[in-house]
C-alpha cells in the first residue's frame, strides 16, 4: 500500500464515518430520551436516499404514500385515545397535529414533485417527507408502551425494522438507486486527490453536530429533552410531557437519518433493505460511546468508517465479518464498565 491508496482509504473511511456519526448521534439521542434502541433508523436512511432518487427521476416518491398511510393510522390512534379518555374536546387539535400536518406535507410534496425542482429544493422536500415519519413512528409503535423495559422496546424496534423493510420494498421497489454527487470537483493536496463531495459530507456532518450541540446546550426545549433523558419521572413532575419529548426526539432523529440518507446516496447504491447494515454500523459507533456520550459516539462512528474502508481493501468479502466481530469486545468492555441495576432488565 502506498501513500496514495492510504490517503484514499482514509478519505473513504472518514466520509463514511461522517455519515455513520450522524446516525450514531440519532441513536444516542433516541436512546437517551426514550430508552429505545432504534434499529429501524437504517430504514429511514434508506428512505432518504430513495426519496431523493425518486424526485430526481421526476416521480412522486413512495414516501408520500407511506407518510399519508401512517398519518391516517396515527390519527385514528389519537381519536381512540381521546375517546377512551373522555377528552373529545381535544380531538380536533390532536387530529390536526397527528394527521393534518403530515397529510399536508405529503400533499405538498406530491404536488411539488410534478415540477422540475432544483436540486436543493428536492433535498428540502426529501428532508421534510422523511423527517415527518419520525414522530409518527414514535406515536404508533413506541408511545403505547413507552414504560416497557429496554428489552421489550428493543424487540419492538426489530418488529418496526421488519415492517419498514417490507414497506420500503412496496413503496420504492426492489431496484437500487444512487443519487448524483453534490459536486464532481476534486483538487490536489500534497499529491493526494481530495474530492469536494467528501469535504461536503464531512462539513455537513460537522455543521449538524454543532447545531445539535447548540440546541441541547442553549435552548429550553433542548434542556427539557436532556432532563427527560436523565430522569423521566422527574421531568414529568416539572411539567415536561414524556410523550411530547419522545415525539420531538424522533423528529430530530429522523431529520438526522434523512440527512444521512441524502449524504450517503452519492457514495453507494442504496436498496430498500440497505439500511439495516448501515444502522448497525452507526450502532457500533454509538455503543463505543456507551449510548450516552455524543462526542464518543461520533468518534466511534469515524473509527468504524475507517475500519470498514481498510477491511474492504484487504479482505473485501470479510468486510462485514470484521466490522461486526469488532463490536463484541466493544460491547463487553462497555457492559463491564457501566453500572447496572438488575431491576431494569
Amino acid at each position: 500500500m502506498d501513500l496514495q491508496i492510504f490517503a484514499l482509504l482514509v478519505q473513504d473511511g472518514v466520509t463514511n464515518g461522517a455519515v455513520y456519526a450522524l446516525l450514531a448521534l440519532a441513536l444516542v439521542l433516541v436512546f437517551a430520551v426514550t430508552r429505545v434502541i432504534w434499529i429501524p433508523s437504517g430504514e429511514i436512511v434508506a428512505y432518504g436516499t430513495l426519496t431523493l432518487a425518486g424526485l430526481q427521476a421526476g416521480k412522486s416518491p413512495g414516501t408520500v404514500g407511506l407518510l399519508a398511510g401512517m398519518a391516517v393510522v396515527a390519527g385514528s390512534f389519537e381519536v381512540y385515545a381521546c375517546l377512551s379518555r373522555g377528552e373529545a374536546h381535544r380531538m380536533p387539535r390532536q387530529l390536526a397535529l397527528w394527521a393534518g400536518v403530515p397529510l399536508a406535507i405529503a400533499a405538498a410534496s406530491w404536488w411539488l414533485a410534478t415540477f422540475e425542482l432544483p436540486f436543493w429544493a428536492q433535498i428540502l422536500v426529501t428532508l421534510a417527507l422523511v423527517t415527518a415519519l419520525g414522530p409518527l413512528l414514535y406515536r404508533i409503535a413506541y408511545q403505547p408502551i413507552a414504560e416497557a423495559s429496554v428489552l421489550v422496546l428493543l424487540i419492538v424496534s426489530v418488529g418496526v425494522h421488519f415492517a419498514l423493510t417490507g414497506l420500503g420494498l412496496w413503496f420504492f421497489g426492489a431496484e437500487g438507486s444512487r443519487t448524483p454527487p453534490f459536486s464532481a470537483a476534486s483538487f490536489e493536496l500534497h499529491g493526494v486527490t481530495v474530492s469536494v463531495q467528501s469535504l461536503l459530507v464531512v462539513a455537513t456532518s460537522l455543521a449538524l453536530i454543532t447545531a445539535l450541540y447548540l440546541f441541547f446546550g442553549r435552548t429550553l426545549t433542548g434542556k427539557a429533552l436532556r432532563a427527560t433523558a436523565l430522569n423521566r419521572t422527574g421531568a414529568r413532575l416539572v411539567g415536561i410531557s414524556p410523550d411530547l419529548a419522545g415525539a420531538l426526539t424522533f423528529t430530530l432523529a429522523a431529520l438526522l437519518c434523512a440527512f444521512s440518507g441524502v449524504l450517503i446516496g452519492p457514495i453507494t447504491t442504496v436498496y430498500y433493505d440497505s439500511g439495516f447494515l448501515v444502522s448497525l454500523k452507526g450502532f457500533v459507533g454509538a455503543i463505543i460511546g456507551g449510548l450516552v456520550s455524543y462526542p464518543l459516539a461520533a468518534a466511534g462512528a469515524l473509527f468504524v468508517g475507517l475500519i470498514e474502508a481498510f477491511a474492504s481493501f484487504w479482505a473485501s468479502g470479510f468486510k462485514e465479518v470484521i466490522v461486526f466481530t469488532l463490536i463484541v469486545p466493544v460491547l463487553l468492555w462497555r457492559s463491564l464498565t457501566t453500572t447496572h441495576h438488575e431491576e431494569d432488565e
Partner: protein
Amino acid sequence: MSSGRKLPFGAWGAAAFVVLLVGVPLVAPQFWVTLGNYIGLYSIVALGLVLLTGVAGQTSFGQAAFVGLGAYTTAYLATTYGVSPWINLLVGLVLTTLLALFNGVLTLPMRGHYLPLATIAWGISIYFMFGNVDFLGGHTGITSIPALNLFGLELRNERYYYYLIWAIALAALWTSNNLLDSRPGRAIRALKGQGQMAEAFGVDTVRLKIVVFVYAALLASVSGWLYAHLQRFVNPSPFGINQGIEYLFMAVVGGAGSVWGAVIGATLITLAKQVLQDVLPTLLGRSGNFEIVVFGILMVVVLQRAREGVWPWLARLLPVREPPPVPAAEPLALRDRTLLAGPLLDVRAARKRFGGLIAVNDLSFAIHAGEILGLIGPNGAGKSTMFNLISGALPLTSGEVVFRGESIGSRKPFAIARRGIGRTFQHVKLIPQMSVLDNVALGAYLRGDAGVLRAAFKLDRAEEARTKAEAARAIERVGLGAHTHAAAGSLPLGKQRIVEIARALAADPLLLLLDEPAAGLRFLEKQELAALLRQLRAAGMTVLLVEHDMDFVMGVTDRLVVMDFGEKLAEGLPAEIQRNPVVLEAYLGGI
C-alpha cells in the same frame, strides 16, 4: 381445580394433539407434511429460546447462526469426506458447544441490552462467514447432501422424516420440561432479574447462564442437522439475522414462559407465513417479501397488547391439576454445627468508603452462637451497608469479617452462602410466578448437586424429593403450610417476607441475616414475625437483625448495636439502650 367441565377439554386437547401429530403424514397431502416438518424444526430452536430468553431472561437474536453451524457441519463432512450423518451430528454438537462457549463466555457477562445487541452482531458475522468461505460453497452453498439412514431405512421420504423430526422435538420438550422442574431449573428461573438473590443462595449465575446458552445452541444445532438432511442442500440464506429474529418472535408469540409456547409459536408463525406468502401477492398484485410487513406489525401489536404471548391464554382453558401433597422423604444432610471457641461472627474494624463518603467507619462487633443481635440506627446510619459487607454483596474497604475463625470479608456472596450464612432481602426477592415450595426449595440449592444433565433426564428424582420435603418442612416451620403451593407473588407482603425466612432456613444456615424484615408490615404481621424469631432462637438459631423499627427490635433481640453516621454509637441490652441518652439524642434529635 379439576372441575368436571374443564377436564374433558384438556383431555380432548391432548388427544387431538397426539392424533394430529401421528396422523398428519398418514393422510395429509405432501404440502401439509412439509409444513409439519418445518414446524417441528422451528419448534426445536424456539424451545431453546424459551429457556434462554423466556425463562432465563437472556435475549438472543443469533440462534439462526447455530442452526447454520449444525447444517453446514454435516453438509460439508458428508459431501466432502462421506462421513456418516450420525457422526456429523456429534461433530456438529461439539463444534456448536465450542462456538457457544466462546460466544457465551464473551457475551453473557454482559448485562441488560448489551447482550441482544451482541447477538445481532455475531449473528451477522457468522452469516457472512458462511457466504464468504470458499470450501462451504460461498453464496451458492452445498448440494447433494445424502439422505439420512436409520436402521437401514433411507429417509428420503418426507413422511418418514416427519416422525424423526417430531420424535426429536418431543424429546427436547420432555428434557426441557424436566429441566425447568429441578434444582438447576429453579436457579435458571432466578436468572431473570433475580441474579443477586440466586448468588446469595450459592448459584454461580454467570456459569449457569452459559450452560443454558449452550443448551439452547445445541437444540438449534440439532435442528440445523435435521434441516440439512431434509432439504439435502444448504446455502447461507436461512441462517441470516432475519431468521434469527423470527425464531425469537416465535418464542415471544407462543409464550416464552412455557415450553409449549415454542410449539405454538412455531406453528402460528409458520402457518401465518405460508398463508401470507400465498395471499399477499394476489392481494397486492405483485410478488416480494411482503409478509415481513405483517410480521413486523404483528410483533409490535403482540408486545403492545399481549406481552406474555398466546400460551397463557390457552393454558387458562386447560384443567388445573391439584398439586399433590409433598411426600415425606429422608432429610438432606445437615452441616457441621460444632461450636468453635469465640464468637460465631466477628466484625473487626470494618470500613466501607464510597468515594468521599465513609458509610461504615471502623465498626467492630461480635455475634455469639444462639443469640439474636439487633443492628439498629436512624435512616442513613450505614446499617444496610454493614449488612452487605457481611453478606458479601459489597467488598470491604478495610477491616475484617471473621466467620467461625475464617476471614470472609473479600468473598463472593455464593462462597459466603456455602459457609452457612443465610439471608433475606429488604426488598422481597421471590420469583412471583413460582410456588412458595419451589421458592423455598431454591434456598436448599447448595444442599443438592443435581446438574443440568441429570435433571433433563429425570435422574435427579431422589434428591429432588428430599429437597422438596426439606422445603416443605421449612415452610411448616414458619407457619405457612397452608400456602405451600400458592404462587409466591400472590401472597401479601407480610407472608412474602416470611417465605424469604423459610427460604433462608432451607439453606440450613448457622447464621441468619435478616434485612429489615418488619419494614412495611402491619401490626399483627409484626407480632407473628416476632413470635417466629423467638421460636427460631429457642431452636438454637443465631440471627443478625437489621431494623429501624425500635419497638419491634426491643421485643425480640438479646443484644443491640446502635449505629449512627457509620460508627458504633452504643452496644448493650435492649433495656440499657432504651435509657441511653446518646441513643435518644440520635433518634429523637435531643429534646
